[in-house]
């Protein structure tokens, strides 16, 4: 068994379900990997640990950082896109007259640093939002609840649930992917040298994760949930169920290309389209060679499609 580690982007939650599932089921083990999952957090900077070999796979955000890596000459590459859609949403109060995307321009928005540096730049360039309407988001929705005329960012699977539960209302949800932000949501990145020298390891991880996701979403995910709760003792079943439901409802993990090409699918067209938008928004330099940011060598082979059929019975 080869030991590898995988750094996620937050403390353990349903959004990491596929990987936990693959660990719990022994899917990785079956192809020769012993995977250790290292949870992250909002301030934790796991990225830099990838190129130096402290971790072997990283749960990346959207494609933007992959472009940055190319720009800065960092030898990492995206090998799979497990979220077909960016799950970022903007939320507003339902009965305050902020019911349209356009109306968001008139109110203050709570946006975190990550968002500010990525999709919000695109919103500025594409729709004419302004940096001055941004207020700090500290990953706590209380200020939003306290002020009807605030909007805030969120993860489709998390904040809406908390707001619904604590605030007692369903917020308006604007999935930015629906407005043209067509990046893949979360990716798996790895070191270029790993791809070159041990492609079987990468293959095992990517395909194992795809199967893990299928099992997690459509099969019996009890074991994975147990693992998540062990890594994050405060996690509630209710929250987990909500997240899974939302991921399914919005097709975050499994929609579009992935339905036929398998979970994790990527296409050159989508990456090019997103890259062009980001260049237009001035977030990325046009000189970047997009094709270096990712490789399609490990995805699009339809892994797990059969399994899904078996599980869902159609």
């Amino acid at each position, binding site marked *: 068994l080869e030991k590898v580690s995988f750094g996620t982007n937050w403390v353990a939650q349903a959004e990491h379900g596929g990987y936990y599932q693959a660990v719990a089921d022994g899917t990785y083990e079956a192809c020769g990997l012993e995977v250790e999952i290292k949870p992250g957090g909002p301030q*934790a900077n796991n990225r830099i640990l990838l190129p130096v070999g402290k971790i072997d796979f990283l749960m990346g955000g959207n494609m933007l950082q992959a472009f940055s890596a190319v720009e800065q000459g960092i030898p990492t590459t995206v090998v799979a896109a497990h979220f077909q859609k960016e799950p970022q949403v903007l939320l507003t109060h339902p009965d305050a007259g902020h019911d349209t995307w356009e109306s968001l321009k008139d109110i203050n928005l709570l946006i975190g640093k990550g968002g500010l540096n990525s999709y919000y730049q695109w919103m500025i360039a594409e729709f004419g939002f302004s940096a001055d309407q941004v207020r700090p988001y500290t990953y706590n929705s209380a200020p939003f609840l306290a002020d009807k005329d605030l909007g805030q960012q969120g993860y489709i699977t998390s904040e809406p649930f908390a707001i619904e539960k604590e605030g007692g209302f369903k917020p308006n949800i604007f999935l930015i992917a629906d407005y043209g932000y067509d990046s893949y949501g979360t990716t798996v990145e790895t070191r270029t040298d790993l791809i070159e020298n041990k492609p079987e390891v990468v293959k095992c991880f990517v395909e194992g994760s795809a199967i893990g996701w299928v099992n997690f979403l459509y099969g019996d995910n009890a074991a994975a949930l147990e693992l998540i709760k062990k890594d*994050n003792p405060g996690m509630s079943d209710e929250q987990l169920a909500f997240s899974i439901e939302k991921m399914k409802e919005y097709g975050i993990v499994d929609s579009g290309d992935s339905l036929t090409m398998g979970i994790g699918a990527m296409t050159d067209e989508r990456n090019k389209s997103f890259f062009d938008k980001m260049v237009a928004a001035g977030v990325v330099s046009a000189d970047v060679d997009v094709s270096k940011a990712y490789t399609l060598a490990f995805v699009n082979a339809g892994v797990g499609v059969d399994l899904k059929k078996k599980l869902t019975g159609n």
Partner: protein
Amino acid sequence: MTVLTEHAVAVPEHSGQAVPLDPLEVSKARAAKIERQGRWILPVVILLISIVLWDRICVWNEIPHYILPRPILVYEALIADWPILSIALLNTLKITLGAMLIATFGGLALAVLFTQSKWIEISFFPFAVILQVTPIIAIAPLIFIYVDSVEAGLLICAWIVAFFPVLSNTTLGLNSADHNLRNLFQMYGATRWQTLRYLRLPAAMPYFLGGLRIAGGLSLIGAIVAEFVAGSAGSGSGLANQILESSYRLNIPRMFAALILISGTGIVIFLLMNFLSHVFLHKWHESALKREN
């Protein structure tokens, strides 16, 4: 006849043989006892009052529980989530105490080094300052690249946050030793080490302990901040993760429960440091002496 010393009024002419049973003595002893108890009761009472106030403010202003939960809610969360919180507390405590220990001894050792030669101090104090002001969020990744154990990494982060007050205060203290005493030591041909051991360290004690009092709280903050930036997992995760998660999930009562545990820890550390100060200083230093009047 006007009487200057207060107690004299109440006391009749007496022979003085009965000193131990003297009403004056008794009233003094009573005052001392009240004071001794007051030192504990008063802050507790004030804390209780402020908790009640907190509750009333929540009620009067109709503050929703997801902004500022009422104390009772926090208490319930504390009880209900105790199994989770207690483990987190333990983990945080481990890092805090570790950081405090290395901050104390590291700060002390550096201070001693710095006072051995003015030139060393001039040359290397800037590095201490740089270390103090460098945001650990920026260098945490660097640390974790070269340090394998998460725990060690957390300790280093927390140490960076906490060491400076000890270093700075102790340096000041070591430099504040009475010059006449220094002359005396010089006269008797004391070695550098003897001067340090018998003169400068004792003289620096009040300052050093003052530094510790600051560093105690900072170690706790350091442990929490380190956890924020290092994002540790599962069984090793501490109160920072609880706060983060609870706040993200809007489980504010639990977040406040975690905050209260942090505050409590801070106060316990502070009391401990005060106790240490008392132990080391009450025999001789102005700040801890109980003068007899």
